[in-house]
């Protein structure tokens, strides 16, 4: 059951998107999100959707896989849709008690849902096609200039890479403990809310104990290899911009320009 959560998971592959420099992909995502918030009409949203579909095709990630990652966020999406429905101004189409639904509200609600979907799917595409290691490497390099301002960039990057690295491990561990407790008759799936909350104790206690144990082991292992925060390490794989990166960034700029132009339509 939990295995289906693909949040922050990396799908190894050899597509063009996989081979892009992580810095390019990070900048792409930043550009994509900016464009998404600049978009204000149907044409712009259509363009953003087309870009996402094109990108996932280039990454050979199936839309089904992409959407399955959305499942845990469905509540937020539905909630946003409903709230925005009543936020519009103009002629009321429908009146329920003190709430009014307007054409503007419907438009707003559809755009909001699209925005969240595209935002999250865009971010998923990044983590699906970039290994956590490459991702933090890219982030560290991109934020490198901040080191001059004494921002602990490499420490932050290390923390992020550890956190990302352990998401799948924690999910696996949760699954294992759930199965062990289920084998002893624990019931996680049915019952009243209070019963279900109580049923989480047998899951959370071992999970916490395990996390502390693992953190301790990891710290020891890192110290054994003489890890010093911020130490000047050289890299085994030096990041290099290739021609495809330049091309990708040019496409990103074109997308941003197009969205800005479409704002006037």
């Amino acid at each position, binding site marked *: 059951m939990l295995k289906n959560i693909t949040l922050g998971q990396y799908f190894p592959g050899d597509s063009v998107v996989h081979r892009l420099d992580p810095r390019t992909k990070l900048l792409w995502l930043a550009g994509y999100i900016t464009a998404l918030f600049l978009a204000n009409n149907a044409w712009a949203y259509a363009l953003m959707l087309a870009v996402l579909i094109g990108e996932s095709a280039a990454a050979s990630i199936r839309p089904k896989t992409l959407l399955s990652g959305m499942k845990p966020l469905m509540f937020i999406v539905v909630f946003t849709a409903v709230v925005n429905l009543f936020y519009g101004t103009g002629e009321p189409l429908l009146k329920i008690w003190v709430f009014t639904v307007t054409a503007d509200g419907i438009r707003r609600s559809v755009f909001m849902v699209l925005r969240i979907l595209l935002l999250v799917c865009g971010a998923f595409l990044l983590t699906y096609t970039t290994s956590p290691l490459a991702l933090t490497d890219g982030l560290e390099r991109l934020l490198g200039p901040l080191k001059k301002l004494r921002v602990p960039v490499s420490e932050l990057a290390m923390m992020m890479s550890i956190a990302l690295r352990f998401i799948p491990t924690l999910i696996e561990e949760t699954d294992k403990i759930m199965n062990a407790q289920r*084998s002893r008759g624990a019931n996680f799936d049915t019952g009243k809310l209070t019963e279900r909350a109580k049923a989480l104790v047998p899951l959370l206690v071992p999970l916490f104990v395990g996390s502390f144990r693992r953190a301790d082991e990891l710290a020891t292992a890192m110290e054994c290899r003489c890890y010093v925060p911020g130490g000047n390490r050289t890299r085994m794989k030096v990041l290099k911009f290739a021609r495809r990166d330049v091309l990708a960034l040019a496409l990103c700029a074109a997308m941003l320009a197009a969205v800005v132009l479409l704002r006037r339509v």
Partner: protein
Amino acid sequence: MPILRAEHLTYIYSQGTPFQKTAVNDISLEIEAGELLGVIGHTGSGKSTFIQHLNGLLKPSAGTVYFEGRDIHADKALLRQLRFQVGLVFQYPEYQLFEETVFADIAFGPRNMGLDEAEVRERVSEAAAFVGLDGKIFDTSPLEHSGGQKRRIALAGVIAMRPRLLILDEPTAGLDPAGRESILGNILDYRDRSGAAVLLVSHSMDDVARLADRLVVLNRGRLALSGTPAEVFDHAAELREMGLTVPAATEIALALKERGVALPESVYTTKYLAKLLCALREGEGPC
């Protein structure tokens, strides 16, 4: 009638994603009451996935599991009852301990069964006795004990449900030799006194050779070999090909035979090998 029967079990992980993998491929087997069935296989051979089907944690992609003749997935309410009948002890079960006291942790299963407090108390004491735990530690925290002790507590937590089939996934992994012996002894004790069937997943050929009545060998999700230990360990070459070894005694017997010592087939326990070797030097006096 066998206590548990698996028919053509197949399980596919992450169906429809790039990670799709057939972990269990068309496995059929039967377990009789009172029997100790050893399951051996290389890491990743599908052993752990397979056993999770037997108490209904995983639903097979194809095939059926029958417990006492009934399809375990036929009725949802029965499935939970089944978990008490088929006790599954996972690898490193000590990581599942969570209660404040040892007593409460062992009592978790029986309490989930809805037994009254007197019955729970009796079962906890009985289970603790089976695994050699002293009643004095009942009020201590399960987390403050040593690794071997924690494993005993976890094992008692499953035995307290009085399962008719006890499944153990590598129960001796990471224990010292004395700890291994005593845990295996506890398991045999439980089998002998309750008449339950035991399914033992193990990496240690010596252990399964000594203990199991019957062996099955899994390789890449398929049932590669099955039979008595003698029958299985006669296929030394095939086992090696699957990345498995044969018991040390078999290894020695085979090497001796190659050098022209007259030994019979199917030597797989140290005891039997020692007896044979003693018989060989009978002429030279007692050994």
